[in-house]
């Protein structure tokens, strides 16, 4: 393996790193212009996506440290696309003073995502997690004069580092038991060995790190503050791309690595393994997320609790297992990420116009900006799971997969259906403010919405509608990439 070949296979990551350094350098010069940095970032991400397309279909480096497969490539592109749509959101955010630094952090976080998605070995996965995490901590705390942002960053950092410690400990236990860090060989070793309690400890500890990343209850406590306090582009990135990558890796870890140690989450036949652990996380997240979201008056906090619930739904596919289950999870997390970036972008517009993001600030949005209101209704209704939007198909897919996989999972499906029934209320409350309440007094608009932001939310809303009407375009691709 020559270095040249390595460079070729890691070209997308390299492109993003080089862009990050270039953007950082421009940010240091007098030329520090938001527009130039944004264009460079967007161009770098686009080139990286092209580079992903030019990779060979299959390649494995260093025993799984970097794996190129259709699945990994597809999700690298999806992560790049999610970072790409975060750029205009960041460009229109006024609180970000050094946009060069911010965008460099965004790019480094994206490299973390790509490593995470591309790795099938626990150590690289951990490095990816840390690289992503460190970038996100900085991004969350980026608004230096806002105490909320500092709180968000600190909370995210404290919880995140604790969760990382758990994961590292879990990884070390698993390494101790199996003598391997590559997922495939862990799977083979586990299949040959008997169940041991220490293994369960290792598995659960490894899962905790991911439960933190996807904000599953009870590891969600950072989410409300981070979503509410962090600058909007950071929150959007934390809630979307970071989640997608985490689910991809989590799926690979549990299916490939811990596959033999599946257990069972059927109601009367619970059996120790990772599946009942995830089922418990899912049920708790769905109930807690939805019920606490009912009481929120801040839209970003509401989105945070709803994100907890959606993390729970998404886990259903992993609990169900199999190719269909993984495909359903991947589909749902992708369209959820698209929807949430859109919702955060609209929140950004409202925040810029009214100076806040409480429900009250959304009052009269339909009169002020019909486009933003229409897009917001598409995002909220998709989150609620109403047709013909992508969220509806996603939920149908997830629930039907879970139900078909094992009749014993009926309890989890009922919990999820109930949660989704509860959730409609608070999404409609948001829309009530958007369409029905009128703004208390005419506010002077602080800044007129920019064309780029409007185009971004329109594209995202169109995507949500498109994937709802023709889900096949995405599901077929995902299914085709799964072994």
């Amino acid at each position, binding site marked *: 393996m020559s270095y040249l070949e390595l460079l070729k296979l890691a070209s997308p990551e390299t492109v993003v790193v080089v862009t990050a350094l270039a953007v950082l350098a421009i940010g240091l010069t007098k030329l520090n212009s938001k527009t130039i940095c944004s264009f460079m970032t967007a161009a770098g991400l686009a080139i990286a996506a092209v580079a992903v397309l030019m990779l060979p279909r299959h390649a494995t480096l260093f025993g799984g440290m970097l794996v190129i497969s259709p699945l990994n490539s597809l999700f690298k592109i999806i992560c790049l696309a999610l970072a790409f749509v975060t750029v205009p959101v960041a460009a229109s955010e006024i609180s970000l003073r050094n946009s060069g630094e911010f965008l460099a952090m965004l790019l480094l976080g994206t490299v973390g995502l790509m490593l995470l998605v591309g790795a099938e070995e626990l150590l690289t996965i951990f490095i990816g997690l840390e690289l992503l995490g460190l970038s996100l901590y900085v991004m969350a705390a980026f608004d230096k004069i806002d105490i909320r942002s500092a709180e968000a960053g600190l909370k995210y950092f404290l919880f995140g580092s604790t969760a990382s410690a758990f994961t590292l400990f879990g990884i070390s236990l698993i390494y101790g038991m199996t003598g391997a860090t590559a997922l495939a060989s862990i799977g083979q070793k586990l299949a040959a060995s008997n169940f041991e309690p220490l293994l369960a400890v290792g598995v659960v500890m490894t899962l905790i790190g991911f439960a933190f990343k996807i904000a599953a209850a009870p590891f969600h406590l950072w989410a409300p503050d981070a979503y509410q306090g962090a600058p909007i582009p950071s929150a959007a990135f934390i809630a979307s791309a970071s989640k997608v990558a985490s689910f991809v890796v989590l799926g690979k870890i549990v299916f490939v690595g811990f596959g033999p140690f599946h257990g069972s989450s059927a109601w009367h036949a619970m059996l120790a393994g990772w599946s009942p652990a995830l089922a418990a996380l899912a049920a708790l997240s769905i109930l807690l997320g939805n019920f606490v979201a009912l009481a929120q008056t801040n839209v970003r906090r509401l989105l945070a609790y709803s994100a907890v619930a959606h993390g729970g739904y998404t886990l259903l596919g992993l609990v169900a297992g199999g190719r269909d289950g993984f495909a359903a999870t991947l589909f749902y997390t992708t369209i959820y990420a698209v929807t949430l970036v859109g919702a955060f972008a609209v929140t950004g517009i409202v925040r810029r116009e009214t100076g806040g993001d409480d429900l009250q600030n959304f009052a009269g949005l339909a009169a002020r900006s019909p486009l933003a209101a229409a897009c917001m209704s598409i995002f909220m209704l998709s989150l609620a799971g109403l047709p013909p939007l992508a969220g*509806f198909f996603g939920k149908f897919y997830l629930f039907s997969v879970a139900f078909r996989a094992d*009749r014993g999972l009926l309890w989890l*499906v009922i919990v999820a259906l109930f949660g989704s029934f509860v959730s409609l*209320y608070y999404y409609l409350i948001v829309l*009530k403010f958007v369409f029905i309440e009128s703004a208390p007094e005419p506010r002077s608009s602080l800044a007129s919405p920019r064309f780029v932001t409007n185009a971004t939310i329109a594209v995202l809303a169109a995507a949500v509608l498109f994937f709802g009407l023709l889900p*096949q375009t995405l599901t077929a691709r995902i299914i085709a990439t799964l072994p």
Partner: protein
Amino acid sequence: MIAWTIYITFAGAIVILFLPGIFTRWIALFTSIAGFAVGVMTFVRPDVDLAHFTTVVRVSWVPALAMNYHLALDGISLVLVLVTGIAAISAVLFSWDVRERAKEFFFWLLLVVAGSYGVFLSADLFLLFLFYELVIVPKYFLIAIFGSTNKEYGAMKLTLYSFFGGALVFLGILAAYAAAGSLDLNQLAQFQFSPELQSWAFPVLFLGFAVLAGIWPLHTWAPTGHVAAPTAGSMLLAGIVMKLGAYAGLRVAMNLFPQGFQLWRNSFAVLAVIGIVYAAAVALRQRDLKFVIGYSSVSHMGFVLLGLASANVFGVSGAVLQMFSHGVIGALLFAVAGTMIYRRTHTRDLDALSAMNLRRALPFAAFTFVVASAASMGIPGFSGFAAEITILIGVWKTYPIAVWIVGAGMVLVAAFTLRALKRSFFDVDLATADAAPPEMEPITIPEKLGAGLLMFATLAVGLYPKILLDRIQPAVETLRFLK
């Protein structure tokens, strides 16, 4: 060809959003007339096989989940498509004076209509569910933005009830899908589901649908929703939306799970009888005219459910005829109460109305209300009589005792209808009988056209019910649960 009802209506809804406001109501009118015309053209064509659920369109949609875009038609669907067209045209005519946010209003209105066409024509379970849920949100906005009394409460209650029913339906659909591995209604209707599955899936599915049909004790959304809704909203609710539940209960729940139906039909018959009598008794005590009509809707829908539960050709055919009949009569009653009276007097309180000498002020409204009341009470010559007598003949064969109870209930229906009629128009106080009537805007031409259309429909079907029954009965005879 019948599929164009759906496409035209959706296209009309979208076009309204993008054309200048002066065209809005005309587009809505032409769209609804075109939809109805398509239905009538199919109705008069002799070569259409209405005895079987014949495929109209079938395109593969999501092969991975065996979903097809599959529309089909039989006599039952066709009759309901016709009543949808009639109710849509008259709802548009009675909304002719909507000026504020008219684009949104007609957009939501046409979405309800298009979704309803979709439900009546779907031959794929997922597609049917998609259209079924699609109707929920437009109803919320129609009521919450454009409604009157307690509108936000009424809208939210209705939406949550619908969505709760939807969650039950979802569960039932998953059960059928998981067992049979297909979503095609015609295939599912051939599949032998295990009795154990049927015994729990049928009540879940049927109850979920029946929520929308106003089954006692889950009917309470109906009166508050009807009262809160704008006139066109109540007309669509009573005319179409309540039929969606009854139709889907027949087409899906009963036809897929015949053994479950046999097991549970006694219970549902009891609920239907209670609903008929209870709602009629409650209506007798209402002071708000719209509440009277709202409860009368619940009572009339009770007949539909009772007819379905009777499980013979007469009862079920009568139930379908009653869906048509109540669709027309309910729309007419709400049109009189909501637009002809309330818009001019700004009150629906029966005591206040009785002092207004409306019979002199609004003679056309008085005439219409007399016709509508007569039809609602089941006077021979109107469609209500034809439908209810057919249902009762069917019910007599299975539940003779129910006929006696319902007979008493019909007296209550007559009582509250006559009371509402007398208090609103004919409370002649001899002292003021000859006084000049209060000045009121005369009944407009669109109102007269809309009322004329509805009165013609109920009279035509009442005098010659064979025109519909000949198409309903063959289709009912081929349903599986009757064999």
